[in-house]
C-alpha cells in the first residue's frame, strides 16, 4: 500500500516490540511531553555485574515513526552493555528501520534520547558517573531545556519561563515565571524536579513560582 513509511517501519508500528513499563526499573527516562507533542518513556533493567541491559521496555504517546523507533531502539539495546547501548545513534536506528521520512526526524529522535537518558539515569543513581563535574547553573539550564512549556510548545528555557537559577552547596533553586496556581505549574515543576534531582551532587531542588 502506498504509505509514507516502508514495510519495516509499518511492521514495528503495528507490532511494536518491548512495549510496557518496568515497575522495578533500574533506570528510566521520559523524553518529550504530552502538552507539546510526542513523548516516550523508557525503562531499563541492568545486570549490576556485567552492566548488560537484560530487559528494556518503552511506552509511546506518539506517531508511527515515534512508535517504530521506540520498538527498534529497544531491540538494538537489549543484550548490550550500557556503554555499548549509549553509542547507538539515531542514524543506526533509522537504518535498521530501512529509513524514515526526513520530516519525521524530530519524532523519532526522542526514542534515542530516551535510551541515553535512561542509561544516564541509571549511572547517576548507581554512582557510575565517571567524570564527576560539579553542577553549575549552565548544566541546570541545559537540563531544563528538556522540560517543555505546554503554553508555548517550546522548552521552558527557550520560552523564557526560567527566571533564575542558583546552585549553592548542593541546593538548586529555580525561579519560574509562572504563578503557582497556573494550570501547568505543577506539571512543569514535577518535570523540572525529575530532570535535576538525579544530578550526582544535588541534594535538594527548590522550585519557586512568581507571586
Amino acid at each position, binding site marked *: *500500500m502506498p*504509505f509514507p*513509511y516502508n514495510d519495516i517501519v509499518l511492521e514495528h*508500528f*503495528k507490532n*511494536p516490540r518491548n*512495549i*510496557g*513499563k518496568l515497575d522495578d526499573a533500574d533506570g528510566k527516562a*521520559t523524553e518529550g511531553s*504530552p*502538552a*507539546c*507533542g*510526542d*513523548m*516516550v*518513556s523508557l525503562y531499563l533493567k541492568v545486570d549490576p555485574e556485567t552492566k548488560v541491559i537484560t530487559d528494556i521496555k518503552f*511506552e*509511546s*504517546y*506518539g*506517531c*508511527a515513526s*515515534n*512508535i517504530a523507533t521506540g520498538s527498534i531502539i529497544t531491540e538494538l539495546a537489549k543484550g548490550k552493555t550500557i556503554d555499548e547501548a549509549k553509542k547507538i545513534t539515531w542514524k543506526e536506528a533509522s537504518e535498521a528501520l530501512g529509513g524514515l521520512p526526513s*520530516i*519525521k526526524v*524530530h*519524532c523519532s529522535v526522542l526514542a534515542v534520547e530516551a535510551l541515553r537518558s535512561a542509561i544516564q539515569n541509571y549511572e547517576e543513581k548507581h554512582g557510575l558517573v565517571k567524570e564527576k563535574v560539579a553542577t553549575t547553573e549552565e548544566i541546570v539550564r541545559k537540563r531544563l531545556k528538556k522540560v517543555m512549556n*505546554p*503554553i508555548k*510548545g517550546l522548552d521552558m528555557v527557550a520560552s523564557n519561563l526560567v527566571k533564575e537559577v542558583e546552585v549553592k552547596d548542593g541546593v538548586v533553586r529555580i525561579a519560574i515565571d509562572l504563578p503557582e496556581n497556573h494550570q501547568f505549574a505543577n506539571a512543569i515543576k514535577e518535570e523540572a524536579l525529575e530532570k535535576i534531582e538525579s544530578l550526582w551532587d544535588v541534594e535538594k531542588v527548590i522550585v519557586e513560582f512568581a507571586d
Partner: protein
Amino acid sequence: MPKNYYMDNAAATRLDEQVLEAMKPYFFETYSVATSEFGYSLGIEAREALEEARSRMADFLGAGHDEFVFTSGSAESSNLALKGVAKALGAKKGKHIIVSKIEDFPVLYSARTLAKEGFKVDYLDVDEHGFVDTDMLRSLIGDETILVSIQHGNQEIGTVQDIESIGEICREKGTLFHTDATHTFRRIPLDVRSIKADLITVSAHTIHGPKGIGGLFVRKGTPLAKIMDGGFQEFDLRGGMDNIPGAVGFAKAAELVTEPENARLKEMRDRIIELVKKKIPDVTLNGDHAKRLPQNANITFHYVEGESITLHMDMYGISVSTGSACFSRSLEASHVIGAIGGDHERAHGSIRFTLGRYNTMDEVEYVVEKLQSIVENLRKISPLGKQE
C-alpha cells in the same frame, strides 16, 4: 482494491456521475472558450453555457447574475477577496483588516501577506466553541478598517458563525465583510438577501463537484481590484481561461445537494458523536454541537496521537484526518484547536470525520467499531492516562 470508508470530505469529495455527465459536452462538443463569441457560433454556445451556470450559482445564493465570479477554487476566491479589497481601498480608505484566528489558510495567509505589505491585521479571538467575539469585533472596527473576513463554517471543528449578526455589525460600522463559505455552501442556508456579506467564497470540491472550480460572490458596487491579470473575463475581475466544464459541473453539483441529504449527513454526524461517547472513554468533542456543520465531527481521543490513529484506520480502508502536528507537513499543530483554548495535547489526538453523499450509516458503525479497538490498543502502549 478493498472497500474505502472515506470520511475526509472536507478535503475533497468523490465526483458525482451526474456532474461528470453534465460536464462532458463541454470537453468534447462545445470546447471553445466564451471569449470567442464574436468569432464563431461555438463560442456563442460556450458563452451561453457559462452564463447559465453563473445564473444558477447566483440563484443558489439569492444573488444577481452579475454578482458571481468563477475562480479556480476557494483559495483563489479568498485571495481575490482580501487582496482585491486591499488593492482597491488600501490607498483610499485605510489599511486595516480584521480576520478571525480560526480562518482557513487562504484567508489567514492572504492577511499575513498583506501585513508584510504594510497593512495592519487584527486577529479576532474565539471562545471555547469557536465562536468569534463580536464585542471585540465591534471595538476593533475603526475608520481605517476596509475589510472583515470571518468564515461561515469552520474547516476543522465545524463551528458555524452567526454571520447574520456579523454582517449587521460590519454594515452598521461601514466596513466590507467577506465570509469563507467553502464548507457551508449548499449545506446550510446562505442567502445574500438576509446575510449582509459583500464577498462570499464558495467551492465545488466540497460538494461532489470537480476540483479546480470555485466562485466569489461580489455584491454589486463592492470595490474590488483584479489580482489575476490576463483577459477581460469574469467582469474583468479575473483574467484567465474560462473553465466552462468546471462552471457547468459546479452548478450541477450545487443543484444535487438537497435538504434531505443534509439531514442524512447530520444524522450520521450525530451517530458518530453518540457512538464514540458511548464506547470510548476520555474523549472531547471539539467545536459546538448545536451550531455545527451537518457533515463534521471532530473528537479528541486523549492519551493517543492522531497520526497513529489515522494510519491504523487506513489499514482498515478508513480515511479521516487529524489536527496533530505529526500529520502536517509544517509540523504545526492545528491553529484552530489552539485558538479554542486547547493545548497541543488536545490537537495531538484530534480526529476529524467529514461526511459526504456516499457515506452510509453502516459505514459509521464500522468506523467507530474499528476506532474503538485502535484507540484501546494505542492507549495500552501510551505512558499517559493510566491509573497509577
